[in-house]
Structure formats: C-alpha cells, structure tokens
C-alpha cells in the first residue's frame, strides 16, 4: 500500500477488507452523482479524490494510464438482467444474471475478466432506480414464473459489498417478489447482506470452492477455503441453504488429494441438507485467454494441460481427464450424502451420465431442477 493510500485510509469511514486495496480515485458520471448509491459510496471514502465525468467524457481521460485502482460510479444504460451465456452443445443451468458492475479487485489467475479489462477501474452501476424498474418489469410481470437470479457475471458478487451494499439492497428489493430466488456467489466473506434479507428462503449464499492449493496459488486476494466454509456454516446456522461451486476444477499434480481434502472440509462444515445445490465445472476458457494467463501469471502452469477446442469453441480439458476428475469429486460428495444436488456446468448428456449416473432429462431438465432446488423449503430436502 502506498503512503498516499495510508493517508486515505485515515480519512475513510469504511473498514477496508483485505481483498481490496484502497482506491486512488473515485470517478462519478455527472448523471449518477446524486443517486443514493453514489452518495453513499462517496461518503464512505471522504479522503479519496473525487472526479466528476461530464456527459461525453470517457473514463480513460480521468482514470489515467498508470493502472490506478479507481472506483467508477457509472450511469449504466444497458440491460441489467440477462440470461447466463449458454451454448446449444452443452447443458446450461437457466440462470439469469443481474448486471451490477464490471471488474473485480481480486486476482484469480484464470479469470476471464483479464481478457476484457486491462485496467483497474472497478465499475459500479450507480443508477439503482433504473435497475429496480427493469427488475420489476421482468420479474413482476408474471408472479407465477420462477426465477433464479444472481449477480457477478463480470465481477464477484460481494467483493465491493463493503462499499456498495448492493447485494443487501437486492435481497431487500427482491423480498417483494416471491417468485425470485437470489444467489450471491463469491470468493470472499461478507455477510452484511443478511440483515436486509427478508427471509432465509429467498437468498442462497454461494461460494466458489476449490482445493486449498489452487485457492492459495491461483485465487489472489480471495478468502481461504476454511473461511468460505465457516461463513457458509454461519449461513446454514441462520437458516439459509448455501450453494457451492467447484469451478474451475483444475488438473494439477496431486489434484486427487487436493479435491478430496476440499470435499472433506465441506462435509466438516456443512450437512448435505444445508447445500441447495453444488456444481462441478472443469476449467474452460476462450482460446485468447491463454496468452494473457501466461503473461500475467507465469507460474500458473495448469494452462499447459491437455486442452482441446470444445464444441462451443472454448478450450477445455480433454474429456478423459475431466471425466476422471468429475467422477472422483462426485464420488466423494455422494459418499458424504450430497447427491442429487450435484450438477455439471456446460457438459453434454454423455458426460453427465458417465460422471453422475443421470442426465438433466432424468431430473426433469436442469433449469427446472435447479429452480426446484432453489425454491424448496429447507425441511423438504
């Protein structure tokens, strides 16, 4: 942390978590400057220089080229709610993503965001009123239609929660929509949203999980597996069901031991009925990301595994190798009592059958199955 940042820290009224350094600047779109969210965030960091971006100006003119950490409070004009990007060739889970911002303060070596954003500008959509309007329009249109929604396609759901309280606001807002279940997926610990969650049945706190070695080597700034599972245990104690995502599963020397340990830890902290669902996803990436990973994370040699080009054009681990991993991890989980909650991310029916013994069709379709699991009362599992 720089001396300048130390100074800022003195003035800032927010406790800064370990996963994120102090921002050097806040930039706000003029149109968004008076929104409650922008005002709240600015108030939380009174020592951080604030710049207002007039209409027509570009953030790059203010953010500078020196790779500074910048918080950008943006008036977002795109669609807030989008379906999870799926492909025809592999089975997808029918999830809808609420777009709340872009970029992430964490530094996972495999993160796709490196290919999209070369800067350290953390964008937050500050015009929440527009978000509420759009959500009401889509989610409120037919209250009998169930939705699984989550944040964090282009960011971690909770990495900026200490500044924004976005997830808490969402949980509160969606409390009025009995047909919506909100999943909050993260690699850090922030349970502050809990206070505003109207019911334990409407929010599914979720963590990405991985073997402890992969977390410490490849997920810079993220919480340890133990911290994540402890937090998951706290949620379970409060009556929430949690979701876990083994994604990306990485093939590395000693992976069996690492993933067996991860499963053991999960079962130490959670009982099967605490887990709403659990996904397994093998590492897959746009071919262009490989060069970026080699450049930004030269020690991440899993990138030299036996990857092939999948039917969706993305690189993925050779089928035999990922099947072995799926079978192994699923086998351990099943032994521990986690079974029908397990699903595969972006895999074909053939892989499902081989790895799990069932296909999405056997479950009545993956999207429907996950909806059922999301809305199922805890006692019903």
């Amino acid at each position, binding site marked *: 942390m720089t001396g300048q940042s130390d100074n800022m820290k003195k003035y800032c009224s927010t406790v800064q978590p370990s996963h994120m350094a102090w921002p050097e600047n806040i930039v706000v779109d003029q149109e968004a400057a008076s929104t409650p969210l922008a005002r709240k965030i600015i108030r939380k960091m009174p020592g951080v220089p604030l710049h207002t971006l007039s209409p027509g100006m570009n953030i790059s003119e203010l953010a500078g080229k020196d790779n500074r950490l910048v918080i950008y409070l943006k008036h977002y004009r795109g669609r807030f709610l989008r379906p999870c990007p799926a492909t025809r060739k592999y089975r997808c889970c029918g999830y809808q993503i609420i777009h709340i911002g872009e970029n992430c303060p964490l530094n996972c070596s495999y993160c796709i965001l490196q290919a999209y954003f070369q800067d350290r500008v953390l964008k937050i959509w500050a015009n929440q009123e527009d978000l509420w309007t759009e959500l009401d329009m889509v989610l409120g249109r037919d209250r009998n239609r169930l939705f699984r929604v989550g944040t964090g396609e282009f960011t971690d759901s909770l990495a900026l929660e200490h500044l924004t309280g976005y997830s808490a606001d969402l949980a509160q807002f969606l409390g009025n929509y009995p047909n919506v279940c909100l999943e909050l997926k993260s690699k850090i610990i922030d349970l502050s949203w809990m206070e505003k969650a109207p019911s334990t049945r409407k929010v599914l706190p979720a963590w990405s999980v991985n073997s402890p070695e992969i977390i410490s080597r490849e997920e810079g700034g993220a919480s340890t597996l133990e911290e994540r599972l402890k937090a998951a245990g706290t949620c379970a104690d409060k009556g929430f069901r949690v979701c876990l995502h083994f994604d990306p599963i990485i093939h590395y020397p000693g992976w069996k031991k690492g993933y067996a340990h991860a499963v053991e830890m999960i079962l130490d902290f959670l009982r099967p009925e605490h887990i709403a669902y659990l996904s397994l996803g093998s590492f897959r990436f746009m071919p262009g990301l490989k060069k970026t990973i080699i450049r930004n994370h030269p020690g991440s040699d899993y990138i030299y595994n*036996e990857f092939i080009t999948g039917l969706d054009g993305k690189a993925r681990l050779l089928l035999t190798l990922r099947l072995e991993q799926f079978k192994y991890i699923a086998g351990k989980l099943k032994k521990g009592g986690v079974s029908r909650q397990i699903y595969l991310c972006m895999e074909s029916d053939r892989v499902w059958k081989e790895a799990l013994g069932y296909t999405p069709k056997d479950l009545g379709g993956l999207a429907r199955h996950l909806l059922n699991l999301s809305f199922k009362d805890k006692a019903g599992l």
Partner: protein
Amino acid sequence: MNLAPDDINLTDPCLFWAQEPGEDYIQNIRELGQAEPVLIMAGPSEKILVAGFKRVKALKALGEKVLALKIPPADSRSKGLIYLLTNQGQTLDQARIISCLRYFSGLGDISEQIWKLLGIDPGSKIQGLWQSRLSLPPDWDRLAAENKICLECSQVLEHTSPEDLDILYPFFKELSWSRGNSLNLLTWLTEKSRMDQAPLSAYIEKLKLEQVLYSRLSPNDKIKIILKKVFQSRYPVLSQLKNDLAQRLGRISRGSRWRIEHKDEFESQQIQISTTINSQKDLEKALSQLEQISKSGVFDDWPVR
C-alpha cells in the same frame, strides 16, 4: 565533388542494407551514368560513405569516378536515419527490417520514427513480434532472411535460454518448416518444458530428435516424425486416444472404399463416413461395405466412453 572509389570508406555500419550491384545494375550505370550523387561525410582522415554503396561499387567496377555530396558530420543515429531515408524505395523483407532494427537497437532505443519508416505501427502486435525477434541472437537473423522461421516463432522463443536456442538452431537451419509446423513444434516444446520445469534441450535429447534430424530420411519425413514425437510428449493422453481411434477406424474400414473420420477431439462420438461413387456398381458395393461397417460396433469400443 568527384572521388576515386577507393578513396571512400564503405564500411560504416550505417550501411545496413549494403548490397553488391548485379550485372543489370552495372549495365544501367554504364548506359545512363550516375544520376544521383552518393552521400559522404568527411571523417578525420577519410571520407565515409553514408548512402550509395551499390553505386560506388558499380562505378568502381566500371573504373569511373564517383560523384559525391558532402554532408555535415552526424552521429551514428543520424547517419542511420539518413541511410534509411535515402533507401525508402527498398522492398522491406524480413532480412532488411531486422538488419535496420539491429543497427538502431545497438545504439539504444528504437525511436517511433524508425518503426514508422519501416512500416510498423508503434504499439501494434507486429511491433511486439519484431521486438521478440530482436531478443533472439543475431545468428537467427540468417534463418529469418532465408524464410526458415516465421516472425511469430520469435515470440514463442522469447524467453528461451541461449543453450536451448543453440540446440534448436540446427532444426531450423537444416529443415524448411511451414509457418504452422514451426509454430506447433516450438509451442509444444516450450510448453512442455515450462510445465515440467525442465530445459527444452532435455526433451530434444529424450525424444532423440537430433537422431531424426541427422538421419537419412527425406526432409518431409523428418519433419513429420519430429512433430509426431513432440506432440506425443506434449499431449500424451490425447495422442494415445487418437492412435487408438485411428487403429480402430482403420480396422473397421480396411478393404472398403469408405473413409471414416472423427473431428471433435472426443467431445462427441460423431464420425464422418465418406466415399466417392462413379457407377451403379460402385454404389452397390459401397452400400454392402457400409452395412459391414455398421455391424462392426464402431461405437461400442469408443475410446472415451
């Protein structure tokens, strides 16, 4: 001023594209005379040529004096720039670009102006590739000049140790690789060595690639065998699967006119069966062979179940 060719020093490094004149060129000078003066710079005891090497050599061959223009003294960078500007019409092939870049990089940084004069956009991907090329030892320039190694390969080789580069050098000196093959070879080798944290030379030795290189096989066969060995080492499981499948499909289609292929890297069980038919008789035969293939249980034994 008119000078005797032997009174001019032709060895300044700024003449980085110096080229002996060919017969046609000498003939042109003989017929038309020297249309443009060469540029010289007066040194303490001699006259140093800054532009016009070919003309001086041609005039010397013809026993003529050289019409020269004297320019004020300049540092090496300016001399190089003058030379480059006076040679703007030259075709910019790999050999010319690299010799120019070597000259200026030897003087420190290469300015944006130089990149632009070479038709390379500063900050572009292609500039990055040339910078990688500069990081290779100068003896690799000759391979590039002979089109034996593509520009993209330089990037793959950028962080390779001098020892490993020495071991790789003969593979490019002796064989002419296509762009795709050379990139595959180097990418697979360097990735394998990074993954196992072992020098590249260890793989070359382990795979006995030098034995193949210096064998009596044809150059094409050498390339094929080297690539196969390196691929097997880089992708052991995938190559095993591919081998198994090739054998299985070969067995099933042996003796028939059908060609069976699988193109999805085992992500699906899809196969493509094709043949060419010229007559009704061909068609009948092909159909009966296809029936045999369908009874062979091609999918029962699929390498990835």
